[in-house]
């Protein structure tokens, strides 16, 4: 029977995510023992007499914990979006960025950095332009009356390259001492700027979209058989497709707006998920979510601890993701 096996895998992965999270909270310029971490977190709910310094508490509560939460959310969100998109587009080489959301959000952020010093403005601009680019791709795909899914991907590529060119233009005209490096760093991705307040806004958005994707995950299986087949099996493909696209786009745009562009998560993690539980989205989505959350937190912990200066996480996910993906493709030759 496969059901107990699925449950076991999810249990093991959940424990791994917790383990990675604790290690992440311990690690950094200041080592904090796990017991202290648990006590500090617990003191928010039950009265405890502090036997730790206020600095330690501040590091945990204001720096590491928000960053951990952001890592979990972004990793989980990008992975589940990637897995859903790969099913919807029936293509295992698709990432959540395929419809141009990253390019759009990147442009939005660059524009924000040029115009303003306020992080909120930059984030809102990134989010808006991420959504705008996907909406543009969607509208563009409607202009042609052929295979909508294929046209959508092509339209995404068109809109994406347009926004990439605009971003390059902004970099070109930006002040090379100040603004240009800010744009470049932002595009490389980092969880460094996340605050607890960001999470208050972004957290519920992630939760809602992830829940929606999880709820319709059986229908993603049916959609992956092709649009016409899915229709013949009673699926409202336009509506279901739109729900998947909206959810994955909102998740990705929200992820980009708090953490910049982090590639390779949404592409690679679903493949690891398939290796663990097979192609069935009923199991693949929850498992991708767990693997993605744990993976991004692990990589972020490495990013901020291997060198004196923090390595942009987008560089690391690509450095680790690309060779890993190459090996995966080789091992997984017969099918996805």
């Amino acid at each position, binding site marked *: 029977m496969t059901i107990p096996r699925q449950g076991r895998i999810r249990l093991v992965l959940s424990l791994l995510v917790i383990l990675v999270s604790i290690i992440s909270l311990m690690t950094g310029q200041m080592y904090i023992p796990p017991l202290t971490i648990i006590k500090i977190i617990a003191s928010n709910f039950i009265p405890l007499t502090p036997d730790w310094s206020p600095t330690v508490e501040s590091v945990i509560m204001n720096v590491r914990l928000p960053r951990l939460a952001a890592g979990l959310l972004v990793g989980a969100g990008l992975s589940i979006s990637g897995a859903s998109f790969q099913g919807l587009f029936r293509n295992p080489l698709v990432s959540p960025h395929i419809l141009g959301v990253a390019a759009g959000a990147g442009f939005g952020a660059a524009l924000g950095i040029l115009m303003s010093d306020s992080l909120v403005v930059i984030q809102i601009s990134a989010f808006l332009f991420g959504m705008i680019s996907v909406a543009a791709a969607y509208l563009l795909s409607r202009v042609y009356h052929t295979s909508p899914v294929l046209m959508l991907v092509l339209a995404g590529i068109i809109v994406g390259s347009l926004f990439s060119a605009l971003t390059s233009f902004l970099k070109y005209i930006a002040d090379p001492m100040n603004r240009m490096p800010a744009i470049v760093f932002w595009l490389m991705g980092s969880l460094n700027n996340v605050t607890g307040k960001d999470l208050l806004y972004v957290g519920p958005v992630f939760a809602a979209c992830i829940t929606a994707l999880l709820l319709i995950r059986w229908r993603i*299986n049916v959609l992956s058989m092709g649009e016409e087949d899915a229709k*013949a099996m*009673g699926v409202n493909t336009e509506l279901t497709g739109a729900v998947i696209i909206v959810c994955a786009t909102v998740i990705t745009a929200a992820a980009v707006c708090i953490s910049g562009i982090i590639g390779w998560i949404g592409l690679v993690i679903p493949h690891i998920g398939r290796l663990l539980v097979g192609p069935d989205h009923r199991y693949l989505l929850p498992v991708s979510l767990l693997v993605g959350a744990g993976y991004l937190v692990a990589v972020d912990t490495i990013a901020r601890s291997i060198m004196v200066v923090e390595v942009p996480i987008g560089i690391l996910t690509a450095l680790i993701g690309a060779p890993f993906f190459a090996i995966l493709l080789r091992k997984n030759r017969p099918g*996805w």
Partner: protein
Amino acid sequence: MTERIRVEDISFTYGSGTAAPVFESLSFSISKGDLVCFLGPNGTGKSTLLKCLNGLLKPEKGSVYLYGKKISTLSRSEIAVTTGFVPQSQTSTFPFPVRDVVIMGRTPHLPLFSSPGKKERQIADEVMEMVGITHLADKPCTMISGGEWQLTLIARALTQQPEILILDEPTSHLDMGNQLKVLKFVQGLAQSGLTVVMASHFPDHAFLGSSRVAVLKDGNIFAMGSPDEVVTEAVLEKTYGVKVNVSYFEEAGRKVCVPVIDN
């Protein structure tokens, strides 16, 4: 009421207006227990017509009625509860086990947010048994033969527990033996009360249990009626542009069609 599908004066054109219509002003109706076989040369719109019958394509003019209801007013799941569709095979991207593909047929019966459970699995297992693919249940569907995949698609459509089954060239990937098996099986379904509509390239197939045959040619129904009336040497020659010999074959107990090359 025994009428299942009624087609009223439908026309279909691919692309925007200027292209020649695939077919024009077709009207016919299909009743319970009918096994209707559409014949016709390549590109005459057999598949297009079948997709109109099931609402996958919308005719430019005219209407299709399913159980007396205009198909354009029905939702996809309302259609799928009564009508199963076996498409021309297109392989799956992901290696779902055959059983999981077959279970997908339960989707129209499931509420939006639920996944199939034990009951669905049991129905799928029964259908696989009936179709004779139980031994494939755990195999990845990307690693079975074209014929096995075709049978999987038939099983998937039957798992919908439809009253109407539409098959688009169900034998195109099958060897001789399996062609005959599938057609016999489909004939059995029709005898048990299922309404079957299929498209085929082989006029021979019309003699394997079809109650009615329609020949599509140049955008019209060129001939429609019982196999004996329709599948004649004269009609076939006009339809396919080659001389065809139709004769009774004693050992097979039915008529067969043999194209004759004219030197």
